[in-house]
């Protein structure tokens, strides 16, 4: 669980361990067969995408139902820059995240006016609009075929080259995300997640912060889209379709969305499972759906949440302190209130703290489901 109390994650502080890990990751192409290198690259791409979603989902508490749009925008931006504008790839690689961030701003500006379900619905509709346009605009976007065989600069043309580029970029991106999460903004964002109304009266402009979070998340998602193009050399409209967005959700849930590493773990599991399941069966969707249902019933805090809770329980066993963290809270009835989600939980009525505010100058409509 990420907090802003004096950090107690000693593992993060040991540079030597990080250097070794980096060396291992970068050495992969020299050691592993191509299929595994490809898989590794895909894991990093999806992990970055899932981590970017988690910035607004796990840390921000927003129902970002169509996060995949920004991923698609970044990918298409790179593809179009190279194939339609004829500009150098490096320009496209920079443009991708920027275009995605701009889309994040455009969509976010309208969505942050709303809460929860409405937020998610409006996002789906705006995103679906983009998908529909991409699907039909043959001359520009390639329509439902997408664009294939996108030419890349020489160093990126081989799998190893692409892999190294992806690994380094993703690594830097994860580092940046880590900084953001530990920063004052990250703390503020989590506070907004826990209680937007409290933040308002503490002097925080909730909407402005949520919008910033969405823009940042969109930018990182766009970067993931760019990396995907580097790996696959193709783009498809399905990258903009909402089903992909829900898959990213599943990755976050599977890994544990209250942890930083959760989304990466979830993405790794899904990508690997899909690759191996794909060899034996064509019913991957069935497997994914079953995993999701089992998760919801038996391990809602995800793999990392589960692991974290076990570690905490061990560490505190002697002292006798109650195991902290959302996992502990979730099982008890009090947790529903403690999660501060009173209005979103179907079991609860309206939040009793304030009367239903129809519209007001600055307060967020917390009470609306």
């Amino acid at each position: 669980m990420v907090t802003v109390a004096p950090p107690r994650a000693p593992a993060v502080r040991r540079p030597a361990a990080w250097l070794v890990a980096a060396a291992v990751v970068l050495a992969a192409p020299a050691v592993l067969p191509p299929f595994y290198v490809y898989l590794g690259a895909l894991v990093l791409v999806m992990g970055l995408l899932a981590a970017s979603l988690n910035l607004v989902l796990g840390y921000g508490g927003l129902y970002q139902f169509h996060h995949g749009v920004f991923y698609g925008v970044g990918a298409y931006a790179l593809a179009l820059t190279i194939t339609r504008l004829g500009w150098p790839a490096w320009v496209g690689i920079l443009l991708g995240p920027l275009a995605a961030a701009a889309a994040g701003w455009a969509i976010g500006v309208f969505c942050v006016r709303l809460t929860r379900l409405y937020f998610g619905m409006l996002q789906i509709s705006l995103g679906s609009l983009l998908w529909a346009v991409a699907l039909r605009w043959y001359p520009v976007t390639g329509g439902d075929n997408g664009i294939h065989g996108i030419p890349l600069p020489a160093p990126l043309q081989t799998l190893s080259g692409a892999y190294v580029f992806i690994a380094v970029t993703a690594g830097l991106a994860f580092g940046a995300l880590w900084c953001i999460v530990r920063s004052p903004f990250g703390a503020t964002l989590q506070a907004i997640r826990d209680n937007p109304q409290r933040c308002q009266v503490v002097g925080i402009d909730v909407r402005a912060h949520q919008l910033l979070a969405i823009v940042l998340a969109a930018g990182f998602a766009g970067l993931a889209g760019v990396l995907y193009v580097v790996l696959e050399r193709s783009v498809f409209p399905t990258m903009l379709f909402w089903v992909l967005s829900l898959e990213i959700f599943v990755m976050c849930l599977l890994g544990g969305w209250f942890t930083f590493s959760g989304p990466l773990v979830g993405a790794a599991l899904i990508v690997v499972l899909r690759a191996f399941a794909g060899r034996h069966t064509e019913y991957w969707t069935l497997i994914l759906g079953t995993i999701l249902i089992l998760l919801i019933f038996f391990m809602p805090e995800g793999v990392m949440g589960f692991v974290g809770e076990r570690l905490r329980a061990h560490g505190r066993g002697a002292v006798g302190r109650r195991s902290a963290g959302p996992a502990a809270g979730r099982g008890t009835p009090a947790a529903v209130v403690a999660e501060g989600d009173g209005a979103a939980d179907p079991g609860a009525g309206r939040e009793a703290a304030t009367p239903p505010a129809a519209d007001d100058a600055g307060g967020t409509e917390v009470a609306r489901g």
Partner: protein
Amino acid sequence: MAELLRVEDVHKAFDGFPAVRGAHLSVEAGRVVAVIGPNGAGKTTLFNLITGVLTPDRGRIVFAGEEIGRLPAHLRCRRGLGRTFQLATIFPRLTVFANVQVAVLARQGRSRELLRPAARFGVEETRAILEVTGLLSRADEVAGTLSHGDQRILEIAIALGSRPRLLVLDEPTAGMSPEETAATIGLIGRLARESGLTVLFCEHDMDVVFSVAESIMVMRQGRTIVQDAPEAVRRHPEVQEAYLGAAGA
């Protein structure tokens, strides 16, 4: 002493239902003022109007000489208004330390700082607030696991993080045991005396009100009946009839 807050003839209706219709309030700097009234009198709505959670349909709200009736809540806070809610609204997943630190960071204008770790900022100030409110020993605990009474105190601590000039407390001792109530009253008294904080609160517990308030405003059905010193209020005929008849002596 200067008047810090003035509420003039404020009205607010919800879908036609008039929750507040003609509320008046005057709070002098450095004082402790209480608002009392039976259930449904409109106290919480009034507090929401003062702190910006709601905007009034009619009337003025003037804080430190500035009309704030139309300002959004977060800007009112920057002007010096702090507040706690009737139900303990803290940040349950963050630690006690982080709960207060968020408010301090906001006051310092750092809430959008992206790159440097939060652990570097506002630490001293946060610890000072936790010490004053008696929560320092609990700094690393997750706020959601605190007892109800401690959560209410944490709420006050969070509000203190924004260094308010006027602290608005909505039923601060609701649901507390006698010991917790006494501790909270002591805290409020200390804050008022030692930091010159102006406190406005509403309560149902009459002992609390009369032990610490210097001026009391009585509301009934959305209206202000009277605002005066405690003894004068106790003797006021309409107040006795509406409210204190059963509880007071």
